[in-house]
């Protein structure tokens, strides 16, 4: 009888208490609490970062940089010569873009970006890296079989076109400047930016939609 009551109480307790977060979530909470207690991070900074990167910062900044380069030959030249300075002109410079190189697709060259070590990525202009960019399969195959990876994304590259694979590091990250689609001569920068996909700035997309 007593055993039964104890078990019943445990069941009720189980039902009533707040849902226990996952092991990882508990460890993150523990870490954040300790860092805040020691004054090493500000909880508002963490909340603001999470809100910004889950809701606001996607690849739009990168797309606007590309659209500007398509529209303004002088800006394009500056972007290829010194990407951080050119990105700073648009007010988008962040730590992750302080060391950035822009590589340009042409009729003869297609560029593909990977981080074989972890997932280095210019997140302040492209948002958080997509799931596949962080996958071990992409990190290994992008170097070994770039054309195969591209085919998987529906990008068929002519044998005549050279595929260049750029391995990002924490010290040097890459952004692909895709080719401007034909038939877009009359478009504004805003309209052009709408055509630029996130994947085209990593290199897993090539032919962008135009008119």
């Amino acid at each position, binding site marked *: 009888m007593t055993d039964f009551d104890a078990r019943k109480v445990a069941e009720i307790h189980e039902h009533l208490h707040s849902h226990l977060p996952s092991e990882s979530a508990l*460890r993150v*909470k523990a870490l954040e609490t300790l860092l805040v207690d020691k004054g090493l991070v500000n909880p508002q900074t963490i909340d603001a970062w*999470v809100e910004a990167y889950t809701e606001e910062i996607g690849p739009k900044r990168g797309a606007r940089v590309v659209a500007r380069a398509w529209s303004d030959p002088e800006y394009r030249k500056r972007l290829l010569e010194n990407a951080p300075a050119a990105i700073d002109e648009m007010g988008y410079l962040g730590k992750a873009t302080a060391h950035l190189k822009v590589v340009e697709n042409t009729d003869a060259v297609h560029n593909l970006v990977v981080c074989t070590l972890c997932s280095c990525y210019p997140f302040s202009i492209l948002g958080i890296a997509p*799931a596949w960019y962080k996958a071990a399969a992409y990190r290994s195959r992008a170097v070994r079989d770039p054309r195969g990876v591209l085919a998987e994304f529906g990008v068929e590259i002519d044998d005549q076109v050279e595929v260049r694979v750029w391995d990002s*590091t924490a010290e040097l990250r890459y952004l692909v400047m895709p080719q401007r689609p034909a038939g877009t001569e009359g478009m504004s920068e805003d309209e052009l930016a709408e055509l630029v996909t996130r994947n085209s700035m990593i290199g897993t997309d090539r032919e962008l939609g135009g008119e």
Partner: protein
Amino acid sequence: MPGSLGKLPERGLILDKSATEALTPLAAVDGQPAFEEAWQAEVLAIADTLVQNGMFSAGEWSDALGAALETAAADGAVDNQETYYRCALQALETLVASNSEIDQQAMAGKREDWEQAYLSTPHGQPVNLKSD
């Protein structure tokens, strides 16, 4: 936090690694949210903040994350976002332990405090740690 991850297919008996990898549909996970759960975003937020604050460098973060990912892959962990973010958390804990006064024991203790706080808080009530 939106969405749940459609996991990459579990691998069966594989004799030819390169052949298997070729079957992994990377494009199939395109379009999935970058975070499946709030803690995953918080891990990157804390790591980025500590890089900005100078506790460790972007290069140290990259090395620690890379080492954790390599170990996970060698251990046969499933190649998905859950694994990636668990490695990121592990890298973050390691770097904090070696660059601050917060050690692994303190982390384990505080984790236990949070678990007890959840277990002792009625459903629907805000969960708070008891003050020390």
